[in-house]
């Protein structure tokens, strides 16, 4: 999509992927931080990992299997927390452990049988060798996220405020919550190939935390978080290729740096000491 501007195909793909991933994850990150759902990052990264292992085991495409398995886990989060009467947080932990068990089981078994499994791109991400389809999928999920937030803005903000009060107001809390969990999980699953499971939190939590330092209002957070993520990650991709540095960790460090800076200069922390 950016080919006319950027000649180098690899840089171009990396930049596009990073932009879409950071926008989708950081917008959803505002919701995730407010609703204490950040363990969704762990769960989805390991679900993708388990999916890749299943794909390899069955002799299919590990990437596709990773996405399919993550979507299945994503669809389970809501109904399982409901049936088990648990906080979504605990459900995420249970599904995380299950995914990890499946992955380790299959990997150990395959090693035993003499096959190796390279999982490093799922753990660390890999912006260099992205498929065109992956970028389209990311673009689609990014647009889906934005549309979802705009269409269900009322309901989502009410859920972020207080689930019980939202339900008493007559909002169809369960429906919106399930769809929300599914979209978060989907975005995370698709972003894994870019930043990897270990760094996904940087896109999910850090931009929202940066926005939280300055914004009193949820609307401005939904704008500020993706803006911060977009600027920093675009700069990170450029700097990474310019100075041959690993892109994903560089973006992570840059975002953390911006967060630290925003904590220092945030006016929200200022205490008014005037007497008159």
């Amino acid at each position, binding site marked *: 999509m950016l080919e006319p501007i950027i000649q180098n195909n690899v840089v171009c793909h990396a930049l596009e992927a990073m932009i879409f991933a950071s926008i989708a994850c950081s917008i959803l990150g505002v919701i995730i931080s407010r609703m204490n759902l950040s363990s969704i990052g762990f769960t989805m990264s390991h679900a993708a990992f388990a999916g890749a292992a299943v794909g390899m085991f069955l002799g299919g495409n590990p990437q596709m299997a990773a996405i399919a398995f993550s979507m299945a886990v994503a669809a389970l989060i809501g109904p399982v927390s409901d049936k088990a009467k648990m906080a979504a947080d605990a459900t995420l932990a249970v599904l995380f452990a299950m995914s990890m068990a499946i992955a380790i089981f299959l990997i150990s078994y395959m090693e035993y049988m003499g096959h190796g499994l390279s999982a490093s791109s799922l753990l660390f991400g890999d912006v260099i060798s992205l498929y065109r389809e992956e970028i389209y999928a990311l673009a689609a999920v990014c647009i889906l996220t934005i549309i979802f937030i705009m269409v269900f803005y009322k*309901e989502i903000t009410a859920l972020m405020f207080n689930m019980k009060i*939202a339900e008493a107001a*007559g909002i169809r809390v369960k429906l919106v919550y399930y769809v929300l969990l599914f979209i978060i999980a989907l975005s995370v699953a698709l972003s894994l190939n870019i930043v990897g499971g270990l760094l996904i939190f940087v896109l999910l939590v850090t931009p929202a935390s940066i926005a939280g330092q300055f914004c009193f209002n949820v609307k401005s957070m939904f704008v500020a978080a993706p803006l911060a993520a977009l600027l920093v990650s675009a700069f990170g991709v450029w700097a990474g290729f310019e100075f041959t540095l690993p892109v994903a960790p560089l973006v992570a460090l840059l975002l953390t740096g911006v967060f630290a800076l925003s904590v220092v200069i945030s006016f929200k922390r200022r205490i008014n000491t005037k007497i008159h």
Partner: protein
Amino acid sequence: MSVINLEGIYTAYEGGEKAVIRDLSLHVDRGEYVVIGGPNSAGKTTLLESINGLIKITHGRATVCGLDVSFQADEVRKRVGYVIQNFYFDPFTPFTVEQVVMMGRYGRLGLMKRPTKDDYHAVKKAIHLVGIEDLARKTIGTCSGGQQQKAMIAHNIAKEPEVMMLDEPFSNLDFSAREYLQGVFKELVRTGVPILMVAHAFDGLPDIPIHLVVMNRGKIAHDLNCTAGEVECIIRKECGALDKC
């Protein structure tokens, strides 16, 4: 037909040893001011949440505004205001009082609909009625406990409900706020909206006929009509704290 009809309902919490509410029947008509009293853990909150379907009714039949609560709970909740007993909003909650009041209308607006002029007008009216204009732009988490309670009352008034249920709405309010809001509710009753008020303190009840429901151990111990002045003694008797009567 009455606005609220409960016919021998049972309500149980998941995992609870037995039903909390057992074989309870209650009828509330338009324009009634219902006071619900009784000792702690009698089942007052559970009763309110059975009426708007937040808790499932296991046996019996409940209709509210002509809707069956067991099958149309979402629809019932759009029409029934409910000020919950306990809430806590942390100081970083990114919503202003005005936005929270508007959320009261979100359910009845329905999915994918945006607030219109009418909605903003209703919000403004509710904020004015409760007397919290000065808080409208303040974030809710930085309001005092009483201010938050007023905001939740405004949230439910903005909803323009057909039934108003309040679970100890005055626990954090000062004398003048209580008396003033009782006046607001009296006016609401006059327009035909029945009020169900759970309370432990009965000063400032409006001077209108009261439909008193006293609960104990998940059942209704008394269901009678009385005056505001008689309420306290009847409930004290049920709670075993008679020395002031």
